[in-house]
């Protein structure tokens, strides 16, 4: 992992723990932000970077596992839990809710570093996915209302003449729309357009089945 292109948040109420983790992350050349409570983390302005959240289970303002539940659907980095006394039910709960790892203090450096690396990797992939989807949505938004009518019909598998008949337009006109859509969605092949339509969750409303062979 290259330096500086991700950030590690440490949330622990023990000042010694915050200091030692900051030292360790610093010596690895990683960027760390250490905070004393869940509230401090929430109000911290997070930069637009891949990240990892190292969360102590026993926080002063809230139980770490409850906090995980609270931020589950928000835009938060993957969590690595730390605990002074790990029990099986807590760790199962944490992992079920998507935590990357659940480490018991004192943990080994290897476990911690490994957990952070996979958390950051996971966040990077998720962010890329979100970014791509955002681009696709923007492209889709650039389509005209008519083109947005044509898209579901053609990706449903209708022949051009069937789709044209569906909209009451000429086949030549439909072909022009289809060409424009391919251009605006920046796809090289029709197969790509179908794949993208699926990502954008464009409903498949028609079937070629009733059409001619």
């Amino acid at each position, binding site marked *: 992992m290259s330096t500086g292109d991700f950030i590690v948040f440490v949330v622990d109420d*023990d000042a010694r*723990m915050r200091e*030692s983790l900051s030292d*360790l992350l610093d*010596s690895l050349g990683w960027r760390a932000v250490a905070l004393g409570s869940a509230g401090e983390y929430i109000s911290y302005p997070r930069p637009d970077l891949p990240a990892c959240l190292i969360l102590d289970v026993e926080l002063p303002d809230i139980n770490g596992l409850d906090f995980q539940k609270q931020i589950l659907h928000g835009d938060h980095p993957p969590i690595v839990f730390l605990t*002074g006394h790990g029990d099986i039910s807590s760790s199962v709960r944490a992992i079920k809710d998507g935590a990357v790892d659940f480490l018991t203090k*004192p943990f080994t450096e290897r476990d911690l570093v490994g957990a952070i690396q996979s958390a950051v990797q996971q966040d990077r992939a998720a962010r890329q996915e979100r970014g791509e989807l955002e681009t696709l949505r923007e492209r889709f938004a650039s389509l005209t209302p008519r083109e947005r009518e044509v898209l579901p019909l053609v990706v449903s598998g209708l022949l051009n003449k069937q789709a044209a008949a569906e909209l009451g337009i000429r086949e030549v006109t439909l072909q022009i729309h289809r060409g424009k859509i391919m251009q605006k969605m920046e796809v090289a092949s029709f197969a790509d357009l179908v794949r993208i339509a699926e990502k954008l969750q464009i409903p498949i409303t028609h079937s070629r089945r009733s059409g001619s062979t």
Partner: protein
Amino acid sequence: MIDIGEQNQAETALRERKLPLREVQEKLVSIAETASLSDLSASIAHEMNQPLAAIVATSHACQRWLSADPPNLERAKITLERIIRDANSASEAISLIRANFSQMDKAKSTVDIGRVITEVCRLMANELGMKNARTETDFDQSQLQQVLIELTRNAVKALEARDQV
């Protein structure tokens, strides 16, 4: 955790008079002590995990500063100082626990009941003051016995109430 089996065995032995009473009593006491010891060791472990985790993490940081090219001696020194500080505070915590232990082991000695009572009155003065209660410490042996009897009765009642829940 109390070894119920062992305790039952001791009680059975007591009933059957196979063991001298004194020996059985000593055994029961030692079982009770082990119970609090296991609780104690769990809490010591919890107390120690935090500084140990910090020490381990900081040591790794120190190692990295030293093996950097060129070595970052300034940072290595700072981390080393933190390791010493955390290790010292952990050993202080251990000494504190040990001191509490040795207090438990202190030999039995005679106490002046009058002084004990005066000390209790002093400790309770605040609480009693809030209730506008007055304390009197002029009593004879039978009155003191009465107090102890009342205390014991309260304890029995508390036990009965707990069993009913």
